[in-house]
């Protein structure tokens, strides 16, 4: 259905698919000078093609360079737009926010993403820059912790490998690798364009069809092998670094929240909030007992056909925290979640969704991601309101056990 009205949210959203397969979502918002656009491609760090590790990210860097010698980022920034791109494990996104010249910027965005242009010189020039970026992330303890956990949870899924690649793998990158990668993954059927702010849908669709390849296209095959959900590949990851206090991150795989199962993502988020958000009895027990501090957080992630929850933070007592988290989850699952507490948690989730809808960047990003994954971002609120206490209790009972968990820790390196 091309037009959907979400009366409760005061939003109207237009969904179109061009003959070449490109999906376009338009979210008009009157009264704002600013506008946001995302062009998201269904490929990321986990998608190798035949290129060395780090190709998706390397390509993202180089795509801004145009054949006539211009750099699309420079062109858009000179118009006052705030333009950027990122490569995640399973998607790559090129996006901007602007307060003027929206259609000129949109045209530039569509052109440069669909115009691969790489030379030996420009590829060589990028290698030290990305090497610097790798060094910068190597200095981030949280990044090391995160990849440490992924390596423990997953045996084979490429989500465990760094999106940036390594200095060794990127040094082998050639223009031919990048052209082949672009050809395989950057097909219109594997992309989605989302626009938040401007309502001139016809003009948006016209620009999109003029600046993307014509002719029907197919999305590429993407598969990452089977991965056991019940057990982590390894139970632990350990490293020592020169940091001020030890940090930990514990993770559990769940059934993948994809396809018909995207509701699981909302159930998981609500379950984790019920269990350990700041308003939970568990949080107060751990915080008051000095076992956690304000760095404690939790998350649920879906990517490359797998899903997992994680929680952690800075503490000297991670084993005790993990023990208490699983014990409390099982207790809630067996004894029940108090009904009024559950309703309050749900109300808070509703407020969070409304807050998120005010951010143009967030809406454009989520409309794109949900479009690629095949669910409706704007249905989040009604879905939230339909989740039952029993579903959340079942989730906690099924997944929150020590047997399913892996824990990554970075300990303090003692001064020599």
């Amino acid at each position, binding site marked *: 259905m091309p037009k959907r009205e979400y009366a*409760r*949210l*005061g939003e109207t959203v237009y969904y179109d698919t061009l003959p070449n397969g490109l999906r376009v979502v338009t979210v008009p918002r009157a*009264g*704002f*000078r*600013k506008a946001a656009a995302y062009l998201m491609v269904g490929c990321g760090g986990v998608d190798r093609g035949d290129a060395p590790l780090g190709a998706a990210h390397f390509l993202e860097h180089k795509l801004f360079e145009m054949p006539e010698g211009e750099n699309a*980022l*420079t062109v858009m*920034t*000179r*118009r*006052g*737009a*705030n333009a950027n791109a990122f490569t995640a494990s399973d998607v790559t996104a090129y996006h901007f*926010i*602007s*307060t*003027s010249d929206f259609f000129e910027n949109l045209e530039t965005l569509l052109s440069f993403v669909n115009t691969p242009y790489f030379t030996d010189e420009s590829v060589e020039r990028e290698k*030290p*820059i*990305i090497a*610097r*970026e790798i*060094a*910068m992330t*190597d*200095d*981030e*303890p949280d990044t090391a912790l995160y990849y440490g956990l992924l390596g423990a949870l997953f045996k084979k899924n490429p989500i465990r490998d760094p999106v940036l690649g390594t200095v060794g793998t990127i040094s082998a990158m050639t223009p031919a690798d990048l052209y082949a990668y672009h050809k395989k993954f950057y097909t219109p059927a594997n992309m989605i364009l989302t626009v938040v702010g401007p309502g001139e849908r016809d003009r948006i669709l016209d620009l999109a069809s003029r600046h993307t390849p014509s002719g029907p296209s197919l999305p590429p095959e993407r598969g990452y092998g089977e991965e056991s959900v019940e057990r982590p590949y390894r139970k632990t990851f350990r490293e020592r*670094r*020169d*940091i*001020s*206090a030890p940090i930990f991150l514990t993770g559990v795989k769940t059934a993948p929240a994809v396809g018909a199962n995207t509701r699981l993502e909302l159930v998981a988020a609500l379950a984790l909030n019920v269990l350990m*958000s*700041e*308003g*939970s*009895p568990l949080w*107060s027990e751990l*915080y*008051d007992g*000095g076992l956690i*501090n*304000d*760095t404690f957080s939790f998350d649920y992630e879906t990517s490359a056909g797998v899903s997992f929850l994680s929680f952690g933070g*800075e503490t000297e007592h991670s084993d005790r925290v993990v023990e208490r988290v699983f014990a409390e989850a099982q207790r809630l699952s067996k004894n029940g979640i108090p009904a009024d*507490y559950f309703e*309050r*948690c749900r*109300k*808070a*989730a*509703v*407020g969070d969704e*409304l*807050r998120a*809808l*005010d951010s143009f960047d967030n809406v454009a990003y989520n409309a794109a991601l949900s479009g690629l994954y095949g669910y409706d971002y704007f249905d989040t609120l009604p879905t939230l309101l339909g989740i039952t206490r029993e579903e959340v209790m079942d989730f906690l009972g099924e997944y929150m056990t020590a047997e399913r968990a892996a824990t990554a820790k970075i300990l303090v390196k003692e001064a020599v």
Partner: protein
Amino acid sequence: MIKLRPEITVLSPGVTLTSVRDERFKTGCVSISLITPLDKKTAALNSSLPFVLSRGTARHPDTESLEAALDDLYGARIEPFVRKRGECQIIGFYADFADPAFIPEKRILEKVTALMGELLLAPALYSGRFRRDFVETERDNLVADIRAEINDRRFWATGRLIELMCAGEAYGVPRLGRLREAEKVSVATLTNRWHEVLRCARIEIFYCGSAPVSQVERALKAALSTLPVSRTRGTPMTAVIPEPKRLPRLFIEAAEVHEAQLRVGYRLGGMEKPDHPALLVLNSLLGGSSTSRLFLDMREKRGLAYSVSSQLDRQKGIMLIAAGIDAERYPDAMAAIDEAVADIQGGQFTDEELEGARQSVAGSLYTVADSQPGLESFAIGATLMGIDEAPEELAQLSLLVTREDVMDAAAGIKKDTVYLLREEAQDA
């Protein structure tokens, strides 16, 4: 195009409310800022205060109870904050909440502001003082936070530069205060500080949302009815040092890093009548965007850095250039930075670069006008720097900045201090 004119009301001497009525958002926000002089003797106490106050009120004596009240208001959030702007330390609370148009709760503004008032004025006390367990936990958290700053090498390097460059100036005091004072925060000293701050701090309140000013005023007056009326709420000043007091010094420190962090601090000259649009454009031109001179030269052309940027503190009259580099290439990096600064001062930049900087600054300011947190942050800065223009007006002025304006603004730039954080040198 909506022309948003903030309405400014004085609730009592030194307590001002800025309201922006705006019906475009699905949320509303209120912030209460207590503006105090940045001083090493009080900085750690001030930075503990909002966190201890957040632990509980007389009516909601613990986190569970407080969070339950907030969750009941559709996940309204009231977050404590500690900010440093020039030589002011600003502590307080920032609240955001769903707009009544989207939820069954129609009195959400009144309920959230009432809670904010309670956090500030009616915290959970024991024998008239803060609870020992609250103070000790938050003191320990503050100490951990200060110790943790070294974990983010990029952030740490910037902090070290400021401490070294501005040693002996109030600006040299870190945002959270120093470790030695943080370790000594106690029930008695913190309770006293709370009383002092309530009496003496300049208070700025900001609202943005769909409610009319009259409703906002009523809600805040009710929420802050027990705030002492005081005639001594002055706005703290920031001392500008127009020139370095000596030749530039280089400090090198060692840490486990894969990427060396270079920081260069500059004084901007006298700031009696700062040309804010020209300063913003100057910064954008030099290192404020991906089309800036530093970015295009040091990163794209010479591969000397992945991350390089410049930033200004227009209250304090200083500029900072930051770059992540390979330590062996420090001389090349320093030379490239010197060249970039000299070029801007000498007018050696193209019309295209200038236009790009103007558009970039205007774009940022127009974006501020479209975001509640943006408007809130802008309002505080405007009060402290005596800026009367709204963000859109500053944006329009930025589009008119000339080459000469930029050169005039850059004329006073003088290098003061250089800092390099690197791996222990192998031949040390």
